[in-house]
């Protein structure tokens, strides 16, 4: 194996003496990254990281704490989404299955953070290669899964909005999409886990793990290019395409409606005039831009970083810098429930019913109609009696 050969060539101690910087050598207490890794685990760590000095303990504690915060936020938000969407009958529509799947991905993404948190509080590669592999597997499935689900949600919304009469999602179609999403992620995970193509390696402060984008060979570069294309470029293109189509269609619908109103000599479309200051077009455009932007912010740092690692100037990738992309995608897992579910009026309604302590003040248009039909029935009964 290529990697093993590489690892054998590096004598960790020899390495230290050649790369050690003056400042590090002056202080007796400062170590290089990975000094506390047992020798037999060293071969799992790309040599790139071993040349950097160890980060201050406080930085590791800070990241650990941040991850604890992310974990609670995401598990709370996404857990709520999963619970309410699967418990409330009104919300069990085929389209919402995709929203639930996104919440599941985001929820499970956090199931790997205990490894990171433990590592951070133990200053490095504390759980060893096994922890790293688990972290990598969960990370790839949930990361690729979440981005593919985002693309599927975009497709579904595009279908519904551009063809409101026919573009109807069915349960079968939604489930088929979800199966496809996980099958889509599987080749990358299997290839990395078996180390047949790419591998999972620690990155940054050696507390988190991801696919290898640093090893300097053709296989790795090809792998980075492939995963970059399939799990970043494809979903991003689809998302941007579908949302821009949605905005375009809403614009043309509004225009068609205004034309018809003009034909009938009607000047006001009340729904647009006094209910909200913004027109429908602007509202939708804002929502679409928010979603696209959020996706872009969450995954672009990772994409760019891996490309730099494989094809660019590796010296740009200091351990501290590489922790940023890892944080952005965790952060998005916390924001997703707000973007996809909290903006859903029916979800807010259900949530208000189930968790009154959240103090969500959602008007209930549905409730009034139900109430009025019942009074009507009562009246019929009384008149009949």
């Amino acid at each position, binding site marked *: 194996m290529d990697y093993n050969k590489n690892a054998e060539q590096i004598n960790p101690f020899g390495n230290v003496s050649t790369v050690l910087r003056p400042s590090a050598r002056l202080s007796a207490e400062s170590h290089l990254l990975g000094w506390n890794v047992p020798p037999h685990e060293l071969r799992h760590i790309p040599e790139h990281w071993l040349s950097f000095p160890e980060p201050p303990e406080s930085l590791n504690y800070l990241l650990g704490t941040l991850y604890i915060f992310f974990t609670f936020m995401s598990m709370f938000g996404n857990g709520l989404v999963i619970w309410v969407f699967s418990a409330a009958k009104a919300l069990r529509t085929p389209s919402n299955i995709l929203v639930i799947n996104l919440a599941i991905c985001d929820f499970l993404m956090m199931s790997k953070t205990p490894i990171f948190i433990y590592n951070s509080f133990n200053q490095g590669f504390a759980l060893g290669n096994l922890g790293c592999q688990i972290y990598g597997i969960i990370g790839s499935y949930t990361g690729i899964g979440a981005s593919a689900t985002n693309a599927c949600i975009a497709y579904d919304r595009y279908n519904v909005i551009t063809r409101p009469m026919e573009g109807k999602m069915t349960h079968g179609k939604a489930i088929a999409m979800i199966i496809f999403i996980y099958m889509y992620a599987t080749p990358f995970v299997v290839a990395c886990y078996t180390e047949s193509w790419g591998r999972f390696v620690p990155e940054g402060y050696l507390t988190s793990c991801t696919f290898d984008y640093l090893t300097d060979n053709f296989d790795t570069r090809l792998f980075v290019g492939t995963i970059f294309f399939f799990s970043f470029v494809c979903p991003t293109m689809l998302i941007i395409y579908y949302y821009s189509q949605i905005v375009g269609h809403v614009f043309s619908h509004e225009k068609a*409606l205004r034309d018809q109103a003009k034909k009938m000599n009607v000047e006001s*479309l009340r729904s647009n005039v006094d209910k909200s200051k913004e027109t429908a077009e602007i509202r939708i455009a804002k929502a679409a831009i928010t979603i696209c932007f959020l996706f872009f912010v969450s995954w672009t740092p990772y994409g760019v970083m891996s490309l730099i690692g494989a094809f660019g100037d590796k010296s740009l990738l200091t351990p501290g810098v590489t922790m940023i992309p890892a944080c952005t995608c965790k952060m998005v897992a916390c924001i997703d429930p707000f973007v996809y579910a909290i903006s*859903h009026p029916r979800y807010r309604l259900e949530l208000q019913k189930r968790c009154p302590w959240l103090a969500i003040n959602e008007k209930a248009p549905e409730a009034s109609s139900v109430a009025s039909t019942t009074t009507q029935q009562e009246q019929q009964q009384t008149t009949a009696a």
Partner: protein
Amino acid sequence: MVVSVKVFKKATPNGKVTFYLGRRDFIDHLDYCDPVDGVIVVEPEYLKNRKVFGQLATIYRYGREEDEVMGVKFSKELILSREQIVPMTNTNMEMTPMQEKLVRKLGNNAHPFTFHFPPNSPSSVTLQQEGDDLGKPLGVEYTIRAYVADSEDDRQHKRSMVSLVIKKLQYAPLNRGQRLPSSLVSKGFTFSNGKISLEVTLDREIYYHGEKVAATVQVSNNSKKSVKSIKCFIVQHTEITMVNAQFSKHVAQLETKEGCPITPGANLTKTFYLIPLAANNKDRHGIALDGHLKDEDVNLASSTMVQEGKSTGDACGIVISYSVRIKLNCGTLGGEMQTDVPFKLLQPAPGTIEKKRSNAMKKMKSIEQHRNVKGYYQDDDDNIVFEDFAKMRMNNVNMDD
């Protein structure tokens, strides 16, 4: 038999303002349209110094409410006309006989009102949804509403607002026309000489709901292929102008092999009978029906008629058309050939013999229904029957929330 006039009545949730309407179906005669004429009764001590405003609105709903995402609304409401009803601003308004009757009967607190449909306003159409769907109906709907407020733009309170769904329909012209629609097509084949020609002729241009459509099919086969079977459909074409969407649905169909195969050199003349009926298309998604109100017998949507000199492209809302489609199956290699013959499916206009016949049928039914329902308020002088809607369809108020 006592001839009684049925009057529709609906009150606000607090019971202070009540609509009285002589009918809920308003007919578009193309050159003019029946105005919405009715009477409103308000308690003066409740009103104090406030006013009563009325609106005629149309609601387009072109997608299910539960599918709405990202804040997209699949429904739009257009206020077609608005007016101050109490105190009356339009002093030279002429009351219709129905309004006169109602004002006489209901006393001093009754105020007549009239709304006019603007030209080009679409007909009421409901798009059928699958059985278990409890959402608001898709299609074009009209509603009239009245509310109590200080000024026209005041926020309307649900308690003092009443709204009632009404229908705008089109009837067939008195003369059904003499033209027999027909279509002739022929099809050649890539690797063999000769053609199959297909001619389809209908026995009428305008059919009434429930009538049999007779399509005479003439096939003459001058090719080397043979016709294996004949399929015959009645297709309903629906165009939703607000989203520029259109789709077609088969509302009646049959397939036959009788007289088939039509071998090379053979001819066939055959008449197919199909009846397009809403009853045969229950629970099918997207079938267009004439705008319908609760628990009424309903028929398929009538063909959209436009004023002479205008094209259907100018029509608003939902545009409906029908055609008979004949498909010949010329075997696996020969492929299919098909042709469409358009026709119109309409309600008979009042006064025609057909209308009287179908009215008589309806009356029989409704008399039977009325026998079973007690509690209607019978009036001895004018024979007015009040049909109280209570708070039915209050939800329409929130269409655009």
